[in-house]
């Protein structure tokens, strides 16, 4: 524990900052608008930074580089895929969504198609996405701190659940945003700092040298399956370990060989489509556009986020390749036991690399960066769920005459309940590898929300029936694929399930939307007025 004093100090600083911000913002959070969307007057720079924090989960911070360190070049698409969705958000969604929505994702759709069932479908979808996304965050945090500090898994997940609930219950969206800003700056800075230092220490400041090394490397996943290699490179420095492994496995693939991880072209397309369109359909990202003053501010905020994410993911890719000259032998040794060893290598590689290039201080910064990633993403997901349950479900289906106070109370209770559910599921699934649930959450968002949202905002011929059936189809197809995936079914109707539901859910939802819309007539109450509002002249 003494060794990790700095890590504990940084984490305590985060907790203290979070509590202070919550206390400070709680005095300004009075109305529903304050609670759900921070009064709609947050500067775009703040929202852009917070959006970066909300999106960068532990999977991005630790997993992108760690995955390259295990599988090699195939894994760069994890980082690129996470990034791509923001272009869809900027060009197709941010501006018009800001103009027509108010508190939740469903609000925008409901404004054009005032049918309560629209709200119900979006609420169910948001709930499923949030649980799929939230549980791996909690579970990842519990495991990370078990490995790093020997902390009790249950205590860590409970602590994170409690802290995030505290932000939301007392400070609403404003506390969530301000916390996300601090956390984003911290985790972004940690990634850039570790990468730059590792680049000059292990890569000699040369991309060419880094790639030459990767060309020589037997991917750790493959080397780890050969017990003789594992034994031979034990304790050797990374450069020697790379040479020895290659000399013992001269015909093996290199870390630059394609196909070590990616099963095939269709699976790759499916994963990529899920990540692009899924990002553009994530409720906890979409509702952030309501917190700025105007559509132009929404576009500026997402642009800032794109630049920030681009730099972050470029660093993550470079850092992934730097793991080979930095800690090849260690990676192989970690992976050798299989199963859990692979997960350990993915999660711990960045943390160990931080210590190697910057000592205990940088390791503490990196570990705290991972906590920041968990906190900011979890808070975003929880407030999105609380908003939809209270605003789209309670206010519509349970108590139509609910006062603002009652609605806010339900949102706060929902936050606590969601927190309990997420912590309970994380504890229950502790022994399972659930990181892939995040990818599935993207698949559901891509299928159920993205096509309906784009059509509502841009296609005048879209109809209420088309939108509703499209959302239901997207949700059903993606859940069906997930069930098949869980059941170990490799193909369905000739389609591979390995890439997740992305391409199939999006295609099915899109086709149904077009066909049903062309067969029906209800284009919304006043479609021309809706489009004039959605695409109105920009003002700051």
């Amino acid at each position, binding site marked *: 524990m003494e060794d990790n004093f700095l890590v504990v100090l940084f984490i305590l600083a985060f907790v203290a900052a979070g509590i202070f911000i919550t206390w400070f913002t709680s005095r300004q959070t009075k109305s529903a608008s304050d609670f759900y969307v921070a009064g709609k007057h947050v500067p775009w720079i703040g929202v852009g930074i917070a959006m970066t924090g909300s999106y960068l989960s532990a999977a991005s911070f630790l997993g992108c580089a760690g995955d390259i360190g295990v599988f090699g070049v195939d894994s760069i*698409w994890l980082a690129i895929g996470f990034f791509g969705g923001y272009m869809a958000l900027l060009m197709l969604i941010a501006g018009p969504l800001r103009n027509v929505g108010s508190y939740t994702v469903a609000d925008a759709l409901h404004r054009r198609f005032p049918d309560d069932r629209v709200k119900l479908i979006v609420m169910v979808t948001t709930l499923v996405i949030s649980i799929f996304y939230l549980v791996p965050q909690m579970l990842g945090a519990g495991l990370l701190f078990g490995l790093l500090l020997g902390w009790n898994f249950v205590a860590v997940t409970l602590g994170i659940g409690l802290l995030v609930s505290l932000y939301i219950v007392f400070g609403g969206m404003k506390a969530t945003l301000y916390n996300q800003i601090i956390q984003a700056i911290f985790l972004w800075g940690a990634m850039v700092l570790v990468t730059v230092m590792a680049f000059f220490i292990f890569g000699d400041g040369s991309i060419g040298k880094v790639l030459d090394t990767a060309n020589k490397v037997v991917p750790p996943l493959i080397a780890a399956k050969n017990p003789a290699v594992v034994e031979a490179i034990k304790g050797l420095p990374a450069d020697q370990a790379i040479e020895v492994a290659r000399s013992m496995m001269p015909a093996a693939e290199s870390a630059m060989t*394609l196909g070590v991880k*990616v099963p095939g072209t269709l699976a790759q397309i499916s994963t990529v489509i899920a990540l692009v369109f899924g990002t553009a359909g994530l409720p906890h990202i979409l509702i952030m556009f309501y917190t700025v003053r105007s559509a132009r501010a929404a576009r500026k905020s997402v642009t800032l986020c794109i630049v920030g994410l681009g730099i972050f993911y470029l660093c993550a890719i470079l850092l992934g390749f730097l793991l080979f000259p930095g800690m090849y032998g260690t990676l192989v040794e970690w992976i050798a036991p299989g199963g859990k060893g692979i997960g350990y290598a993915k999660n711990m590689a960045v943390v160990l690399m931080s210590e190697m290039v910057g000592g205990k201080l940088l390791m503490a910064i990196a570990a705290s960066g991972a906590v920041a990633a968990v906190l900011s993403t979890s808070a975003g997901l929880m407030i999105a769920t609380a908003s939809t349950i209270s605003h789209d479900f309670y206010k519509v289906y349970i108590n139509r005459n609910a006062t603002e106070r009652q609605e806010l109370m339900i949102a706060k209770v929902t936050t606590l309940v969601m927190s309990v559910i997420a912590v309970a599921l994380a504890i229950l699934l502790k022994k399972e590898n659930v990181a892939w649930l995040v990818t599935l959450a993207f698949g559901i968002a891509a299928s159920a929300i993205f096509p309906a949202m784009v059509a509502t905002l841009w296609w005048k011929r879209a109809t209420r029936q088309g939108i509703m059936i499209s959302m239901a189809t997207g949700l059903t197809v993606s859940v069906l694929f997930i069930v098949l995936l869980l059941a170990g079914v490799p193909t369905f109707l000739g389609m591979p399930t390995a890439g997740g539901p992305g391409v199939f859910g999006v295609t099915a939802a899109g086709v149904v939307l077009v066909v049903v819309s062309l067969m029906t007539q209800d284009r919304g109450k006043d479609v*021309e007025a809706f489009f004039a*509002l959605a*695409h109105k002249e920009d003002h700051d």
Partner: protein
Amino acid sequence: MTDNTHQPGIPATGPEADKRYRHRLVLGFGLFVLFFVFYVGTAVIQTPAFSHVSSIPFLGMPLGLFLSVAIFPASWVLIVIFFAKGE
């Protein structure tokens, strides 16, 4: 959608609004399709079936890796165009 006439601040419908909507439709979807084709095309090249293309050396690295990494700056260029043409 509530009644338009009862909501102050709702912009007027008409040819101007329609022109603005069409301009943004062409700009937004046009640039996004450009990005998406480049993006998915590169993702496909980076699969084993197209390894003969992705492994072609280009500027000191395999073409597939170069194109993959180029997605980041390419997206920034498209954003500049988006804002420049959108004003």
